[in-house]
């Protein structure tokens, strides 16, 4: 594992840049715990100050230091992505490995559900959730909802690998060695899907953070947990661009673009590492 990472850093420039960005972001997360101001407090600094030596990224119209808002926002946004990725990975592994190995009716039922979740448009559903939950919509709730929506595509990928693993002769060797199904799935098949799991983690984070940002910008999430999207939401509601407070918008938008490029570079280099063959051609049954 360590040597893989080392080789990737050394010989894959995309991976190296992606990793560097990720490390910077983790640095920001650590830094956020040293914020001199509580995240939700307003009018702690003079409002509408442009970036200078004291306020590196200026201050907002709400009297908050943009830099510290950004650090705390990054923490919450990243935490959100990791949470969704973790939960949805578990779901997709369980469904994908089981469907692929068991085949037959189990597979058909699981995949029918899987495909339905895959094509259902998520945004209206999320808006509906917000519409009925209103103030009950909090950070954890959104993690759970997005996890429940975000596993199907990857479950199908994992299933296609599991299906080919099932027909590999070594699976029969394991069966006739008296291994149980659980042992075969966890010890024999799981190592083959782990690279895919890592690569899809990045894609999943790109997706879930994107959704979260969109929802927060629209004000459809918990307004009390500052995230990247939240910053843009407040900036918009104070017409920051029109009143020339450009740094209030530029800081989160810039951070988001860097975050996404970093995640994407990681996912791309991992995909390349696993297998240059396409993922799509494994999906068409």
């Amino acid at each position, binding site marked *: 594992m360590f040597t893989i990472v080392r080789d*990737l850093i050394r010989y894959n420039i995309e991976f190296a840049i992606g990793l560097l960005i990720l490390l910077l972001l983790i640095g920001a997360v650590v830094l956020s715990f040293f914020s001199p101001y509580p995240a939700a407090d307003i009018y702690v600094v003079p409002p509408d100050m442009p970036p200078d030596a004291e306020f590196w990224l200026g201050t907002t119209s709400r009297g908050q230091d943009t830099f510290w808002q950004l650090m705390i926002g990054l923490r919450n946004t990243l935490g959100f992505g990791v949470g969704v990725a973790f939960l949805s990975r578990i779901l997709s592994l369980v469904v994908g490995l089981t469907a692929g190995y068991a085949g037959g009716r189990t597979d058909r039922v699981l995949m029918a559900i899987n495909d339905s979740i895959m094509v259902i448009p998520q945004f209206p559903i999320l808006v509906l959730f917000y519409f009925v939950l209103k103030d009950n919509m909090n950070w954890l709730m959104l993690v759970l909802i997005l996890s429940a929506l975000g596993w199907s595509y990857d479950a199908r990928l994992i299933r296609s690998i599991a299906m080919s693993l099932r027909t590999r002769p070594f699976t029969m060797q394991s069966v006739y060695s008296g291994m149980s199904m659980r042992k075969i799935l966890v010890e024999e098949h799981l190592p083959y899907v782990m690279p895919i799991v890592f690569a899809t983690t990045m894609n999943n984070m790109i997706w879930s953070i994107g959704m979260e940002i969109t929802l927060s910008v629209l004000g459809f999430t918990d307004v009390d947990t500052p995230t990247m999207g939240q910053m843009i939401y407040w900036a918009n509601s104070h017409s920051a661009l029109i009143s020339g407070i450009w740094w209030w918008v530029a800081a989160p938008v810039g951070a988001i673009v860097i975050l996404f490029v970093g995640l994407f570079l990681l996912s791309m280099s991992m995909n390349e590492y696993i297998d240059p063959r396409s993922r799509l051609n494994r999906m068409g049954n």
Partner: protein
Amino acid sequence: MQTEALLHTPKAASEPILAVENLKAYYTTKAFGIDRDIRAVDDISLTIAKGEIYGVAGESSSGKTSLIKTIVGAIRPPLHVVGGSVCFNFEGQAYNIYDLGPDELQTIRWRHLSYIMQGSMNVLNPVRRIKHSFFDFAFAHMGLDRATFWDKVREHLRRLDLDPGVLDSYPHQLSGGMRQRTTIALATVCTPEFIVADEPTTALDVIVQRDVLTMLRDIQRDLGSSFLFVTHDMSVHATVSDRIGIVYAGRLVEEADTPTLFRGARHPYTQHLVASLPKIGDATRRASLSGRPPSLADPPAGCRFHPRCPLAMDICSKQVPPLNPLAPRHRVACFAVSGATS
């Protein structure tokens, strides 16, 4: 002795259609900083006469597929030619494969030099009817108008006992044998002078295999083409090839006319290959070789067969035995046979 050999194989007298000299082709992989050379074709020289069927035999990963890929100029990275030459002689004109530009190569393909791939599912484009393949492959090379072209194609198919109706089929609608026969028809429709066949019957059932081999022999008789015929199966070689070269770990270790090779092979590896063939009607015990074929990335020094060789001597692990002529049309690379002079 020389006259006798000539008498048995008059083809040898005519000038060679293919001359391969000191050909070397390696796979160079640079995955994550580790450079590896896999010497798939290592210093191979051979000539093939007009109208001859030359068989190349060897086990899996002996480099025989790389050899023919290099000969027909179908190499892609990471495989690349390190040295040597491949020279064809078509209609009195010499074509050195690795001196030709892509356009020139294009013009000799199919017209003069064609190729039959392994009898796998995937040789014909799965989403188009077979007639489109015939058109794509042959129309430009034949220089005929459409009507005459299709007449020619149909006539060719009929001559090979194939229903011209196959033209309107998709590949998946044909059985494995039919698909392979169609591929062979496609490869021979331009009456090429040189045909390379790579394991053309490997995936086929025995009865179908017999038909396909008969078809290939008939084509060779009708067209007078030369064949480079590659398979691991010695009994197929016995049936088809005029002359056989045995490849072991990227090197040619013995070469002789087929009867000579089966009756009087001299290289211990060839001897073993011939002796281990089981036959119906003969249940005497067949011995097997110990050890394993060497890795081409890290082959043993000297003769690559020496770790498994019953006749291995000191020198075998130190020097590479040259491929010496033992008799006319019989070359062997073995110190135990040709003596330890280098």
